[in-house]
């Protein structure tokens, strides 16, 4: 590669304060939810209720990461839905397999 040619003039824009503030807010939310999960892990007994709370909080965290950090919320609708709809298969797989697992445990 030749470096003799003139480097193109680049205009550096000032930091987008609002955007950066929003990103740190999301980071704060993720941190707080993780802290809540910690508290629940040591204060509640194991059971279906505890598991559902953890799953719900995890989905909230996932939504923030995918929506804000990965910017999916602001992408065009076609992309948004073509990523989101196939997730249905995962949900179905989860329900079917865990149900199967519980059925196995009754015959063991």
């Amino acid at each position, binding site marked *: 590669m030749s470096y003799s040619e003139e480097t*193109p003039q*680049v205009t550096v*824009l000032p930091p987008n304060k609002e955007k950066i503030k929003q990103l740190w807010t999301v980071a704060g939310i993720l941190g707080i939810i993780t802290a809540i*999960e*910690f508290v629940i892990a040591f204060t509640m007994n194991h059971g279906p209720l505890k598991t559902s709370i953890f799953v719900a909080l*995890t989905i909230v965290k996932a939504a923030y990461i995918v929506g804000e*950090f990965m910017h999916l919320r602001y992408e065009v609708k*076609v992309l948004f839905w073509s990523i989101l709809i196939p997730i249905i298969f995962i949900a179905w797989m989860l329900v079917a397999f*865990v149900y199967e697992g519980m059925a196995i*445990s009754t015959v063991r």
Partner: protein
Amino acid sequence: MGASYGKLMMWFFLLSDAFTFSALLITYGLVRSSHHAYSGAVEAFKFSTEYWPIPERVYESIPFFYGLEAPLVFVGIMTFILIMSSVTMVLAVEAGHRMDRPAVEKWMLWTILGGIAFLSCQAWEWTHFIHGAHEGRSVAEGTTFFGANLIQNQYGPSDFADFFFFITGFHGFHVFSGVCFNFLIYYNTVTGVYERRGHYEMVEKVGLYWHFVDLVWVFVFTFFYLV
């Protein structure tokens, strides 16, 4: 579709990767729910192959504090490290949009550092898991077994350690690849490749991958360490 080809393909790759990770985690769910659950008090918990171990009694050590019981603290630190490196990555992307090369370099370095820190933590955790600690578990021949391998482990059914190695290992390998990609991006930024190209879209694409690694960890953390 209004998104660039490269970004679109990264998204579809990540979707396929999500299926792979889901398959691993759901298989874990199947095998775990087919074993008996431990139903006594947490304090009275003993390692046994009769039931699935509860995570807060397996992962309760932190480096430099031998014998101190600090359940889940170390994985909490690892989670925090990965979330922070996700934030620095997204700040690098923001700097890239503004064509601010020094800022991209700075945030990419922090992201790489976060990735290396996470991998180091995982190396310690694996070492600890493999060598074992505490009282071990009595085996049939009258001896005590410490630690874990793919055949048997002190914590519970052999499937437990197998899933630990496969799931955290597969995720750790993703982190390792991510650190390599991030370094490549950092290198290209420093040498001015993206400045000459006129845009920093590569930072964005690799950023998507890096956030995905963080996303997977969120699920591994919940299903492996909390539930």
